[in-house]
């Protein structure tokens, strides 16, 4: 008899769709660690009401956790997978990636794992090869950086800024997008993250300036511009 096992069973019924479906279809009769009485109590709630609650919470997770933080990715996933928010959330919470979240996944690490899983195996995401980069972009713009280097130059393999704009401003799902480099200077302060688009040459020089490397062999105009931009950001 274990209270822990009872909570674990409820957790699975709430978040693990395949487990819930299998249980409701009678594919297994009790969750691990439950005795007869506990199994009966859990069985009693695995019904239509609980299914409705699962749907409601799936929408809550989308609305409260992901849409406000990573809206372009969240919308793009629904379009790419041809599903609504609740369905997307239920696929996500069913994944191993969901279990990697820290608290309410405010830094998007679990969502990133889910997107990577999808990108590796799901045909639907083949036409949206930019999805992992789009999420990386949104995470960085939200200030979730892999280290504390600030300011920083980030290179993206797709025009993720344009893709995000298309999804959020024009409500268009980018089709036949071609990979192209995007270089951004990112700067974080109390007000949030600022982003400045750079050309490839500017990005190369900016990295040198940020790393205090010699820039004698770089075009003076670009060097001057990089220093000016940095001064403006920091002032």
């Amino acid at each position, binding site marked *: 008899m274990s*209270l822990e096992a*009872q*909570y674990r069973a409820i957790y699975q019924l709430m978040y693990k769709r395949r487990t819930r479906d299998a249980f409701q279809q009678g594919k297994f009769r009790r969750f691990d660690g439950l005795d007869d*009485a506990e199994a009966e*109590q*859990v069985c009693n*709630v695995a019904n239509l*009401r609980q299914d409705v609650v699962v749907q409601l919470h799936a929408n*809550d997770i989308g609305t409260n956790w992901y849409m406000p933080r990573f809206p372009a990715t969240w919308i793009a996933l629904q379009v790419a997978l041809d599903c609504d928010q609740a369905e997307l959330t239920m696929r996500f919470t069913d994944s191993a990636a969901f279990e990697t979240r*820290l608290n309410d996944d405010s830094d998007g690490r679990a969502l990133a794992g889910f997107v990577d899983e999808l990108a590796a195996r799901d045909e639907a995401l083949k036409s949206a090869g930019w999805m992992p980069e789009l999420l990386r972009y949104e995470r960085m713009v939200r200030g979730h950086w892999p280290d504390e280097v600030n300011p920083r130059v980030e290179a993206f393999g797709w025009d993720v800024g344009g893709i995000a704009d298309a999804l959020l401003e024009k409500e268009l799902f980018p089709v036949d997008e071609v990979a192209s480099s995007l270089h951004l200077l990112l700067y974080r302060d109390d007000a949030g993250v600022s982003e400045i688009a750079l050309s490839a040459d500017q990005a190369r020089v900016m990295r040198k300036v940020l790393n205090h490397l010699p820039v004698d062999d770089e075009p003076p105009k670009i060097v001057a511009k990089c220093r000016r931009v940095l001064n403006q950001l920091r002032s």
Partner: protein
Amino acid sequence: MAELSPFKRVKAAAVMGVGLGIDIFDSQPDFRVLIDKHRGGFDFLEVYSRGDWEHTDDLFAEIPDDVPRTYHHEGLDPVGPKLCPDGPIEGCAKNQRLLNPPWTVEELAVRHIDGKYTDFFFPAILNKQCVQATVANLKALEKRIPGPLLPENAPYEFAVGDMHLFDFMNEVAHGAECGLVLDLGHVWSYQLCVGKGDQPDDRIESLDLSRIIEVHLAGARIEEYEGGRIYRDLHGAGPIPEESMFLLRELLPKLPNLKAITIEVEDATEAAAVEQAQQVREVVRRLRPAWLEGVHVS
């Protein structure tokens, strides 16, 4: 004072009156605006910190000393199978030191299962095992947290277990020698789970009403489906359901140790927040006028 039970300690506290439950991190309602512009609309604030006990110091310092307050913590997971990690306990103790409330509210729910954060309060599993674990947790917490805890009945969307909610609350309150917060909307949420939605006060006489120190009210939305209705907490983003107001009218004369009525108003405008407080205050004035004597709002 230290030898008194948590119940005796809260029972000895002064009446707080009708207050507003706010999230310290919210920009709406902004507690500073409530204090500056609407001080006549509430007697006290119940301060909630959304489970983020680490970033509260500066904000708490902005609450003037003359504004009475209670504290609503999150993360102690008192109905869990074992005591929560040290962080939430230390955070609760820290915030008590900062706020000096007469008591601290905590949901009879878990927010973590196997260490994983959940998107809502998983309410207590209603059985003897959970009672035993809850009592043990509350007693262990009492030793580590200086101010008394007041457990609150959490919202139910589906109920697991073979006990009635009121029996569960009685056993917890008596076992841990503590008082209780009775959230009236959450009572109705439970009744909706057990097919008693049309009788929000069903079996209320079985609840030890002497243990109720604080009552909560909040806005809610009802989801209907072909098999029933589901209560969803909206707090300040919706009207207080009539069923909650009915329970207030029913219970108000029957709560001998009532010290506080809190309207949870997260997401409400400041004006809407004090309007809901006024709505509740009118009921109190009509049914139990003496109770409001001596509190801030005349």
